[in-house]
């Protein structure tokens, strides 16, 4: 077969190709927002919750008449938890869809990867990342992080397990920024002397963790702490079980979600895991559970989904407050609607908009925490909870309140 293209058909084809994107642009009156979530790859266990939470907030606000009298259009892209893909996706969101903010990035490398493009275009970023490089790279003050930096996690888990009288630890962590800095925070609290092994890192996606686990439990510590994600922790835990380790296994609640419990079954008994949690009585968290169709329980549910709700709610409140979709204006308004004493506390977008339109100053308290930002745009401390798996269920054993 052969393939002919004459000048006429070439011109027709290229004109068509150039015209397509104009159809895709949001209508001039719409407020365009980009959602860039990790729906596949390393963040796959959490991405879909964030995507769904973003969408719910936008659907609700559009049904109620939109923001500044305009409809909100959400453009969703999958970052694949890969900075290479994410940068191209961000490029499309910024230059084609004309978004004023990109929310929902999860892995630090993705958040940092798209930052040069976002800064150049004055696009606000909202993420749940952990790298301490984020505030440094954010030269224009446009980035807001909805997750406490991971050294704080490590310190909190350290405090909580130390109070349980465990004296010797074995330590290893997944080799990424989030888990590594968590390990540093943990060591700060328990002290070098409590460590029986030299802490080390393991790589994701290995088929077996036999030698790593052997090294970890060589000196038979009372407890091992393994900051990790669910995929690798499942493999690591299987190996710990196979090698007959009898001490306490400590990790983050990210690693012990339903996916883990299903894979491990009864052998998961006794694992201790910690996580920053929404204030247990927070109305926003309860509302989130209803919105997402979940039953209240002791387990940490949708840790990043709640953050997703808070990201979009904060963003839309800030746009309403600023009366503008320009990045720097929104960024300034984010502080005004989340942080500061003596304002009306609101727990959802509808109430927040009503209060703003009534001319009140508001402070949004979210489903993932009270959402107060420091001057670098990092969220301030959240409550921390330590749970133990008993009979396949998470049972809260301790709570640290900030």
């Amino acid at each position, binding site marked *: *077969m052969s*393939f002919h293209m004459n000048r006429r058909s070439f011109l027709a084809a290229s004109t068509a190709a150039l015209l*397509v*994107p*104009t*159809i*895709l*642009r949001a209508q001039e009156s719409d407020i365009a927002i980009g*959602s860039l*979530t990790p*729906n*596949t790859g390393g963040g796959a266990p959490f*991405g*879909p919750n964030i*995507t769904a939470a973003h969408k719910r907030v936008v659907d609700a606000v559009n049904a109620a008449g939109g923001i500044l009298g305009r409809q909100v259009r959400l*453009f*969703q*892209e*999958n970052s*694949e*938890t*890969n*900075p*290479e893909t994410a*940068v*191209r*996706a961000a*490029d*499309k969101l*910024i*230059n*084609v*869809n004309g978004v004023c903010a990109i929310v929902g990035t999860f*892995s*630090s*490398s993705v958040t*940092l*990867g798209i*930052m*040069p493009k976002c800064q*150049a275009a004055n696009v606000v970023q909202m993420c749940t990342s952990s*790298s301490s*490089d984020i505030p440094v*790279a954010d030269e224009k003050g446009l980035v807001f992080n909805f997750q406490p930096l991971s050294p704080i996690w490590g310190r909190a888990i350290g405090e909580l397990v130390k109070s349980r009288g465990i004296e010797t630890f074995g330590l290893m962590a997944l*080799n*990424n*920024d989030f888990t*590594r800095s968590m390990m540093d925070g943990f060591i700060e609290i328990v002290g070098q002397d409590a460590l029986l092994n030299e802490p080390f*890192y393991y*790589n994701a996606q290995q088929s077996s963790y036999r030698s790593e686990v052997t090294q970890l439990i060589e000196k038979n510590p009372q407890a091992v702490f393994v900051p990790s994600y669910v995929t690798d922790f499942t493999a690591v835990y299987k190996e710990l079980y196979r090698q007959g380790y009898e001490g306490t296994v400590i990790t983050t609640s990210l690693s012990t979600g339903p996916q883990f419990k299903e894979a491990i079954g009864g052998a998961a008994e006794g694992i201790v895991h910690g996580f920053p949690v929404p204030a247990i009585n927070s109305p926003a968290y309860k509302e989130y559970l209803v919105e997402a169709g979940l039953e209240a329980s002791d387990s940490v549910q949708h840790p990043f989904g709640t953050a997703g709700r808070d990201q979009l709610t904060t963003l839309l409140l800030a746009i309403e407050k600023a009366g503008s979709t320009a990045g720097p204006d929104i960024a300034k308004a984010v502080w005004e609607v989340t942080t500061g004493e003596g304002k009306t506390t609101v727990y959802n977008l509808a109430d927040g908009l009503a209060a703003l339109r009534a001319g009140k100053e508001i402070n949004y308290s979210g489903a993932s925490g009270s959402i107060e930002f420091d001057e670098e745009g990092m969220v301030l401390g959240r409550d921390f909870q330590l749970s133990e798996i008993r009979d396949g269920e998470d049972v809260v054993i301790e709570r640290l309140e900030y």
Partner: protein
Amino acid sequence: MSAYLVSMATYAGFFIILALALNLQWGLTGMVNFGIAGFYALGAYTSGLLSAKAGWPLGMSIPMAIAAGFAAGGLVALLSMRLREDFLAIVTLGVGEVIRLVVLNEDQITEGPRGLRIEAQPFQSLIAPENYPVFYLGFVAFFVAITYWICERIRKAPMGRTLRAIREDDVVAGVLGKNVFRHRIQIFAIGGGFMGLAGALYAHYSQNISPEVFMPTVAMFIWMSVIVGGAGNNRGLLIGAGTVIMFLEGTRFFGDVLPWLDAETMSSVRIITIGLLLIVTLRLRPRGLLPEPKFTYTKDKIAG
């Protein structure tokens, strides 16, 4: 929109340089290289580290990236001299992963999983920021042109014929007195150098590199570019790499017009589309969109 097209064209430029390099190694000489991502990473990190950490000017760090790719290519070819086809494929895949894992774990030097921030961009101070993306596209296009020119020269030169002879049957080429060993090392080193160049250009463009960028999937996209474009034909690769990027990126727009496709389904649909592209191409044009021209013997006119 035009800003988006400019940036996609820039990406296509990186892909084209990588594809030209692979074509040199595999299309022309028959040496399988699955470690493209590794050489790409080597170039990116060499130039990135030299400029960000050692403060070298880009005029030196980018050539160093080429040199690093060149040396690594030569070394890999030397080590795996006795290996052919499948075995060379496995060695190169291994080398690619080794480079990525070293970058990931030697975090004192490379910043590991945190990713390396690179401030320096070529001719940064001379170009206004709003014109910079267009300038960079031109900058990349310049290097694409040079790479293309070198590859074409090699292909048309007597050396190109020798390389094709090695690809078809290296024993015959050896028997005819060609130095198969030397040619293979040369070509692998030159290809490695080009890949290093592509890496350096990418690093200074994206200004933030981390080991996750250099997963083996990158190699797969380049392989597809070469297969779709037509192995052995440099001109075909320009089309092949362009087509792959177009499908990779164009499929993104499905999500905007088809709202019932959520972000997860979308990314699967995109990869499926790329797979279909490969299958359809191989079915309809097994030798690529622009196949390598067959060598035809024409009678010498003067001698007639």
